[in-house]
C-alpha cells in the first residue's frame, strides 16, 4: 500500500469560496486542507492522498501582478511540502487558466514537484503552457466538477508515483509536442495503407504526424486614409546594422532588432550586414533596399502618399524559426508598433 501523498491545490477566489469578481484582487493566501473546489480533488484522491493545503489567489491579482503572485504562490506551495500540485481545473476561465499553467510550470521547475492542471481547449492557458505542463482537457463550465477532478487526479497520481504516462489521447491531456519512439506490430507502409483505406471509405482515422495548426487571424481594416497613416517596415529577411548588435541568430532565431532610420533617405550598404542563413544574401548586402525599401517609402512619405514612415525598422531572421518563437516575436513587435502609433505594416519576407 503506497503511503498517502501530500497534495496542494490551487484555486481562484471563486472556486476558493472567497467571492466573485469583487474579490478578484485578493492576494495569494493558503488555507489548511481542502477548500472549495479542492474538496472535489480530495474526494477524487480517496485514500491515495490528502489535500494538505489550498492556495487561493484572485484572478485579477494573478493576471495583473503575475510575477509577484507567482512568487508568493510558489512559496505557499513550498511551505506545504507537497508530493503533487493540482491546479484548477480552470475550464474556460482565461485568467484562471493562465495562472494555473504558470503555477504548474513554476512548481515543476523551482520545486521539482509534479503538477497537473485542467482546462477547456480554448482556454489561453492551453497554448501558453501545454508544452511544459500536463493539462487535462475539460469542459467549458464547472458542471461536472467531480469527474473532471477525477481525471486530473488520475494523471496527477501517475506523475507523482513516477509511472509511465501514455499518449495524450489515451490519458486525456493536451499534446505537449513531444515525439516518442514506440514499437508497433505493423510497418509504416501497412499503417499508411490502412489509413488511406479508412479515408477512402469515409471512416475516421488519426494521422501519426499531426500538422501544425495555424490560427486564423482576422484581417484588420486600415481605419485611416493612407495619406494620414503611419506605415512601418518590418522584415524577416535578416537585415541588421554592421556587427549585428542584437546577436540575431543565423537560423532558428529567438531575437529581433529595432533599428532607427531617422534622418535617412536611403540605407548605406556599408552600414549593414545580414546573418540570415536561409537564402543567398549577396544581393541584399549589395543593396539593402532589395529587402527593406526605405528609399521608395521615404519618397512616398515626402510625396504625401503616406502620412509618415515609422522611424524604426524591425528585423529578424526567418529560417527554421519555430512557430512559437515567431508568434511571440510577432506579438511583441506588433505591441511596440501599436504603442508608437503605427497604423499599418509592410513586412518584407524572403
Amino acid at each position, binding site marked *: 500500500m503506497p503511503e498517502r501523498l501530500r497534495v496542494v491545490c490551487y484555486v481562484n477566489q471563486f472556486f476558493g469560496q472567497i467571492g466573485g469578481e469583487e474579490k478578484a484582487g485578493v492576494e495569494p493566501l493558503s488555507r489548511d486542507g481542502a477548500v472549495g473546489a479542492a474538496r472535489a480533488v480530495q474526494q477524487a484522491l480517496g485514500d491515495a492522498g490528502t489535500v494538505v493545503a489550498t492556495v487561493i489567489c484572485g484572478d485579477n491579482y494573478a493576471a495583473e501582478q503575475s510575477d509577484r503572485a507567482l512568487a508568493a504562490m510558489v512559496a505557499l506551495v513550498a511551505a506545504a511540502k507537497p508530493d503533487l500540485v493540482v491546479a484548477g481545473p480552470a475550464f474556460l476561465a482565461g485568467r484562471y487558466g493562465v495562472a494555473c499553467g504558470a503555477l504548474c510550470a513554476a512548481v515543476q521547475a523551482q520545486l521539482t514537484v509534479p503538477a497537473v492542471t485542467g482546462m477547456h481547449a480554448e482556454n489561453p492557458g492551453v497554448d501558453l503552457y501545454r508544452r511544459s505542463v500536463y493539462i487535462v482537457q475539460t469542459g467549458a463550465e464547472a458542471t461536472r466538477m467531480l469527474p473532471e477532478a477525477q481525471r486530473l487526479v488520475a494523471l496527477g497520481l501517475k506523475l507523482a508515483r513516477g509511472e509511465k504516462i501514455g499518449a495524450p489521447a489515451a490519458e486525456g491531456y493536451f499534446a505537449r509536442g513531444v515525439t516518442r519512439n514506440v514499437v508497433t506490430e505493423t510497418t509504416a507502409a501497412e499503417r499508411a495503407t490502412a489509413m488511406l483505406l479508412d479515408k477512402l471509405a469515409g471512416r475516421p482515422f488519426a494521422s501519426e504526424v499531426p500538422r501544425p495548426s*495555424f*490560427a*486564423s*487571424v482576422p*484581417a484588420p*481594416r*486600415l481605419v485611416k*486614409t*493612407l495619406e494620414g*497613416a503611419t*506605415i512601418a517596415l518590418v522584415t524577416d*529577411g535578416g537585415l541588421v546594422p554592421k556587427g549585428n548588435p542584437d546577436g540575431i541568430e543565423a537560423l532558428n532565431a529567438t531575437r529581433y532588432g529595432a533599428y532607427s532610420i531617422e534622418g535617412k533617405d536611403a540605407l548605406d550598404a556599408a552600414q549593414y550586414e545580414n546573418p540570415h542563413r536561409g*537564402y*543567398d*544574401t*549577396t*544581393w*541584399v548586402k*549589395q*543593396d539593402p*533596399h*532589395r*529587402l*527593406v*525599401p526605405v*528609399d*521608395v*517609402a521615404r*519618397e*512616398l512619405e515626402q510625396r504625401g*502618399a*503616406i502620412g509618415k514612415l515609422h522611424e524604426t525598422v524591425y528585423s529578424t531572421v526567418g529560417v527554421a524559426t519555430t512557430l512559437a518563437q515567431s508568434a511571440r516575436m510577432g506579438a511583441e513587435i506588433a505591441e511596440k508598433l501599436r504603442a508608437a502609433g503605427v497604423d*499599418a505594416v*509592410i513586412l*518584407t*519576407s*524572403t
Partner: protein
Amino acid sequence: MTPVAVMVGANRIVPAAGIIHPLGNAELSPDDEKALRRRIVEQALQALRTEVAKPTVFSSA
C-alpha cells in the same frame, strides 16, 4: 513563397521579385530596379487599403 504565406494565414500578400531580392533585381538598371521596387511597395499600400476577409494574394499589376 506566396502559398506558404496563404497557408500560415497572412491576410494581405503581395508577390515580390524573388526570394534573394524580394524588392529588387540586380539584372535591371538602377532606375528600373527602383521603379520595380516602387511598384511593389505601392501595391502593398493598395493592399493595405483593401478590405479582405481571408488570406488574399494581390496579383502583380
